[in-house]
């Protein structure tokens, strides 16, 4: 029976970085990575496919780590991360626009639904339950870019209009109008799907 497999003994290296860097990373992981779920959800809302969403989350956290020293401890870390995510996402859209892969960020291109429009949503809660989660998310992903983010941050992440305004670098009034428009378009899209699937009557 051979005595030992290898003559060379080298303890596994658990830590190869200076303690200060490890401490920063450890703090970052406990403060920022705790919001991974929210950042990931936002990326899913913004990106049309899973891989793009994962990539966006990764670049967001790398950028956040790079800027972690400037993060004001005690302030809203989730909002800080979502701001970085939004900026990265806008960069990506601009880059794709330059190389001609996507249309410009659309804001006013979709016809705004008429105010006080009567619909067939006699019981909206029941109607909405007919959609799968995937269908609802898909409909959200079809909204114009900035409206989509605004609606997502308000409804899903339950951020205040003020926080959303800061994240998106726009006045609060713009957030209200974007959210409102986004909600109206989403409703219209879902109604249209509902009719296609045969569980909603005609509009009006």
């Amino acid at each position, binding site marked *: 029976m051979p005595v030992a497999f*290898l003559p060379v003994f080298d303890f596994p290296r658990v830590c190869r970085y200076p303690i200060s860097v490890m401490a920063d990373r450890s703090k970052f992981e406990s403060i920022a990575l705790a919001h991974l*779920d929210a950042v990931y959800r936002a990326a899913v809302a913004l990106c049309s496919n899973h891989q793009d969403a994962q990539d966006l989350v990764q670049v967001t956290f790398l950028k956040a780590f790079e800027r972690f020293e400037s993060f004001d401890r005690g302030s809203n870390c989730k909002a800080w991360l979502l701001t970085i995510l939004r900026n990265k996402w806008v960069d990506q859209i601009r880059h794709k626009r330059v190389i001609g892969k996507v249309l410009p960020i659309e804001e006013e291109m979709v016809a705004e639904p008429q105010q006080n429009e009567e619909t067939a949503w006699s019981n909206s809660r029941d109607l909405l339950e007919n959609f799968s989660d995937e269908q609802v998310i898909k409909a959200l992903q079809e909204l114009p870019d900035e409206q989509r983010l605004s609606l*997502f941050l308000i409804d899903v992440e339950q951020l205040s209009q003020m926080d959303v305004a800061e994240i998106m670098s726009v006045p609060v009034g713009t957030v209200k109008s974007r959210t409102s428009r986004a909600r109206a378009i989403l409703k219209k899209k879902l109604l249209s799907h509902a009719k296609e699937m045969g569980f909603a009557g005609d509009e009006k």
Partner: protein
Amino acid sequence: MNHLSDEQLEEVMGGGIRPEHLEHCDQCKKRLAEKEALASRLCSAFVSIKPEEELVEQIRRQLNVDSMPSEHGGRRCLLSIRSHWRSWATMASAAAVLIIAVPLIIHLSKPSSAAAAQAALVRIHEHNLSPNHEFYSESSPEKLADYFKNKLGFSPSMPRPEQGLSLRGCCVRHFRGQIVGSYVVETAIGIMSIVVVTDRPESLGMGQKFQHGEHLFWKSSFAKCEMVTVRLGEYSYCAVGEVSHSYLTDLLARLVPDSQK
């Protein structure tokens, strides 16, 4: 009667003051209820959206890699160059640093596909160590060979357990869009994975070539892991673990069949 605007309803939903009008107007009440129902459904649609564990690990690994420039003075060095820009002495030092650092950075930076390949190898290793994944736990090399023969169509070389190590088991994984085999070796000083791929060591970004015995080996490092690769026949055997290159090299040297030694 003037109905509430959509923006006013948004304000109510955001926790703003509820206008008196809402108490009397059924139409506005209904519009608000619809908006609230939609918000609630949208929120519930995302409840099941969670990142995969793999993404968390990827981010952690990247944070490890991202920490490296400051450790080696990369980022701090640039800041210090800016703050002492007017000093000739500092400029001369900076030039010297650049002369040394630029080739070093070029040398250290890997092409993205190679870095991605190495990240994938490290990921396979980390998955092998994770208790929650599909793994064929078997210490008999013959049974592991049968498993691979069945799954991959060939039996890769494996070290003999009587040589002071034990085999934990094996699994098949995806690497660069192909199915590859991986098995785990346990020794007194650490656990290592060996991933068997058809890619040549050079294409994996294993830049540092060295001779050990009669064979050529390639070595590299990624995140916390070291990697050594040897080409045997049509396959490259990549040993990955948090142990030294020499340890991994010796492990791979044990794979060479007696007839080839």
